[in-house]
């Protein structure tokens, strides 16, 4: 079943064509990887899907059947539909604690407002708070961060920060999560753990769209791979097929670089 459908998505920055009529689908419950050389438009595509930038033309549909129209929606609305993301250059709330960072993630799944903040008695705000804390500590435990819960986010190591950003995205209980180079800068050991964790998430029914450079990460876990080059989609298919696609080898693996 299709969860995300991107059709003829185009985005221009001044004279630069960042995305050129890109179309592909993401099936529910799958891990889809988006690969391509630097500057191919991968992050721009993420930004379009999460409402950070507005595409010029094209459509983004989310959900079964025709689904919700995402283009033109504000980032917070898109988050409410059930899409969460991480960033290439980790964007944590560095002066908040680790736990608080994850708690922010539960914002879309909770609803107590001004009144409940001041008069929590009997409003269900307490249960909500307990639910959120529960959920967050479970996530922190799964990602091996629970012992740092009260530290400042900025005090974590790089690998821990990556995991924290993932935990924060997952705290919103999304249907689709967009991960922008989650393995960048991780040690070999950390990469292995990440791959296991992503597969665990997939088992739980989560759909993952992933930007990744490291083929050793992409190939084993992806169900589907989409290749971008100069803003245009040049290939898509199962990992094996893509790896053997001559255009991909030419554009990406072959002539320019190996990374």
């Amino acid at each position: 079943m299709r969860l995300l459908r991107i059709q003829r998505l185009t985005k221009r920055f001044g004279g630069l064509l960042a995305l050129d009529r890109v179309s592909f689908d993401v099936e529910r419950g799958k891990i889809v990887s988006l690969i391509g050389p630097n500057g191919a438009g991968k992050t721009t595509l993420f930004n379009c899907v999460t409402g950070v930038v507005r595409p010029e033309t094209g459509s983004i549909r989310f959900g079964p059947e025709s689904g919700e129209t995402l283009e033109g929606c504000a980032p917070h609305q898109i988050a409410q539909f059930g899409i969460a993301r991480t960033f290439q250059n980790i964007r944590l709330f560095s002066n908040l604690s680790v736990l608080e960072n994850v708690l922010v993630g539960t914002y879309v799944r909770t609803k107590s407002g001004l009144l409940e903040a001041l008069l929590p008695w009997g409003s269900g705000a307490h249960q909500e708070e307990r639910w959120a804390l529960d959920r967050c500590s479970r996530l922190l435990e799964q990602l091996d961060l629970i012992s740092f819960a009260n530290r400042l986010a900025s005090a974590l190591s790089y690998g821990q920060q990556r995991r924290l950003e993932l935990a924060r995205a997952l705290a919103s209980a999304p249907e689709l999560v967009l991960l922008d180079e989650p393995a960048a800068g991780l040690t070999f050991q950390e990469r292995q753990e990440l791959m296991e964790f992503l597969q665990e998430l997939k088992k739980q029914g989560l759909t993952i769209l992933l930007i990744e450079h490291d083929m050793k990460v992409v190939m084993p876990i992806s169900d589907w791979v989409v290749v971008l080059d100069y803003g245009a989609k040049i290939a898509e298919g199962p990992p094996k097929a893509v790896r053997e696609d001559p255009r991909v080898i030419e554009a990406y693996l072959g002539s320019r670089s190996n990374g």
Partner: protein
Amino acid sequence: MKKTAIFLLLFLIPFLDPNSYHIEILATAALYALLALGLNIIVGFAGLLHLGYAAFFAIGAYTYALLNLRLGCPFWLGLPLGMGVAGVGGVLLGLPAVRVRGDYLAIVTLGFGEIVRIVVTNLEPWTGGPNGLLGIAHPVLGGFNFGVDSRPYYWLLLVLVGGIAWVCARLRRSRIGLAWAALREDELAARTLGINGTRLKLLALGLGGGIAGLAGAVFAAKQGTITPDSFDFILSVMILAMVILGGLGSVRGVILGAVVLSVLPELLQGFSTYRMLLFGIGMIGLMRLRPQGLLGISQIRRELQRAAS
């Protein structure tokens, strides 16, 4: 409860020290504390650098003054109305302002602050212009008229400061408070997590504006006379200084900041013409000693951190 004890002690001060000047200073400090608490919601919680906060103070003061002089509205009704009108003002002026960011927001709010003051000055038929409004009624509670005695105002303001401080502390720990903190730290990341930045910023501006309006109504009732020069840019800057000196985001901190910066010039009265020179040196000195503010949040956090590790 330590807080209750401190509150009671503060409440009893007028009985222990009947000197009306001292009480006046305390009442003024409490008024500033109220303003600092309100601005802290905007600057400390939501991270919006606001340089026109005195405008909401003015709106609250003029709202009560006009309602009282034109319609005979009693203080206890004018107080919430002043708060409401200033709160709405905060939201309305915020609508365009939240579209710009960072230091640009600072100048837009500065502009609004000046516009409000000049408009108040120039709308002579309504506001009395530079002449201001005279003969605003003092509050009456159960037949007792507050008059010009500082004590009842001090008590009233103490209750308001206590109440608003409680509200602020609750807000900071609430879901909304966390969302503000997230917006302050990284707006884009916060928005992709489902936080409606515009709405939350407007909420902060509305609440902050409302608290300033509350303070304004009390100020108008206490002074009995208001003129536009009570609400100038310097006041906005001084309140901001109180918030930053006390410690951005810290409820106890900004109260302390307000007390220090409102009492210090009074302590320096003995130096007459050297007063403000020393005040300037004092501000530089205090800030150098405590760059995070007297009770800065990050200061506290860093200490927690050290204790934890």
